[in-house]
């Protein structure tokens, strides 16, 4: 039976009967939904990489970066479903990402004065988000266990408290104790971030 399953061609889009259900899947961060939209967009990623003279193996990088931006836009409500295929929007993001990567590559060869056009609001937004992510990663590292694990499991890996308790991934054996500990850790994390902002005059 497993061999039959293995031999069945994988099509992550099979479970989505239309653009709307696919969008709902993306909103819920469902892996098949993300794979489906990526599968549809992958040929365009290869085309952009070729068009913009990027290394052939950077198609995956373009796709991953674009997916990250796309999911962020779905999460913050910038992208709303209007009946169009979600992959169309992802392709548009990929085009911009590929162009940005081309410019970044060129920047390393030419002087900065020629690149005023780099101030794209989307690019700035993206770099701000990344900066925040890097800072939080750094603060979590400073906090160490158990706070790092408790916060990571819920806020980054997306596991429910029930699952974490059932699997025994932390020392907390009830969801209440886990929640109390996480709240405590989050307060500490915010205080670390506040202190860092004050120290760096931000």
């Amino acid at each position, binding site marked *: 039976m497993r061999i039959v399953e*293995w*031999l069945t*061609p*994988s099509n*992550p889009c099979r479970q989505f009967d239309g653009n709307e259900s696919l969008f709902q899947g993306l909103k819920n*961060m469902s*892996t098949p939904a*993300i*794979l489906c939209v*990526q599968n549809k967009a992958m040929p365009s990623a290869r085309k952009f990489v070729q068009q913009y003279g990027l290394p052939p193996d950077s198609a*995956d990088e373009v796709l*991953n970066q674009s*997916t*990250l931006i796309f*999911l*962020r836009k779905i*999460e913050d409500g910038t992208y709303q479903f209007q009946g169009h295929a979600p992959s169309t929007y992802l392709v548009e993001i990929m085009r911009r990402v590929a162009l940005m990567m081309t410019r970044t590559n060129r920047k390393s060869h030419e002087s900065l004065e020629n690149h005023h056009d780099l101030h794209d609001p989307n690019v700035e937004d993206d770099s701000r*988000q*990344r900066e*925040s*992510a*890097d*800072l*939080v*990663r750094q*603060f979590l590292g400073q906090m160490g266990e158990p706070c790092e694990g408790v*916060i990571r499991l819920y*806020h*980054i*890996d*997306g596991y429910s408290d029930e699952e974490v308790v059932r699997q025994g991934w932390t020392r907390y054996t009830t969801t209440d104790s886990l929640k109390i500990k996480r*709240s405590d850790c*989050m*307060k500490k*994390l*915010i*205080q670390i*971030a*506040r202190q*860092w*902002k*004050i120290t760096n005059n931000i």
Partner: protein
Amino acid sequence: MEDYKQYLSNNADEDERRAAAQVMEGLSELRLESKVREVAIERQALRRRGFWQRIFVYLVALALVAGAAYWFLESKQTTAPLPIPQQQQPIAPPTDPGVPTEKPQDKKESTPIAQISPSERLPNPRYTAPDVTMIRGDEETNKALKALLDQIWYTDYPLKGLKAGTSFQQADESLKKRDFTAAYLELERLESQNAQNDTLRYLKGYCLLEMAEGNEALAYFDPLQGRHAVWEPQLQWYRALAMLLADKRMEALVLFKQIAAQPKHPYRRQAERTVGLLSK
């Protein structure tokens, strides 16, 4: 996602609120990064699976093609005539056994009999058969046998694939001159010195055949069966002739038919002629 406001202290100032907002933004970004990484790993796994699926499909297709080819060849082989037990195909390309060389078409005569096209007429034997009318009882039967043998006496010397050494020089010369009595005497002498020599056996069998001694010839030919592949086709033919001489007509007919059924046998056409004559 939990609301970050619940983590703020009661008297939270603007710095704390902004710090909390940044922490939540950073966590959200880390969550998205983690998800994209997870999906990328899944995508790689699917790609690998697709690769092995394609390999599997190609292998199955290849196996099917190989199976079909095997089945086709196998079915072709079963329609071909069954090989004769203890007989092997000749290694050396055969020439025209027993066909007169003094005919004008020299080029054609050097062509093996098996390569003569079916439309070409089979030349008559170069030599006549030994006289059997004098040594057998029923004169009429012997005359008929002689007439038959004259039409099929495709014998030739030197024997195909046989290299007679210096010890056989005298017998060899006698056989070339078709002086079978002298050859026989010489071979008798050699046999008394080394009876187990296959070359000697073959030469003596041939000599006896040309002397119309069918049974005696068979006594020398039979042990040689399957021992020397290069002699085998001619040995088969000579055995069949010896059987006719020995009045083993049915056995001879079976062997002639077996020879005729082998498309590459150098005596195929002679055998076909003989089968035709014997079946009349």
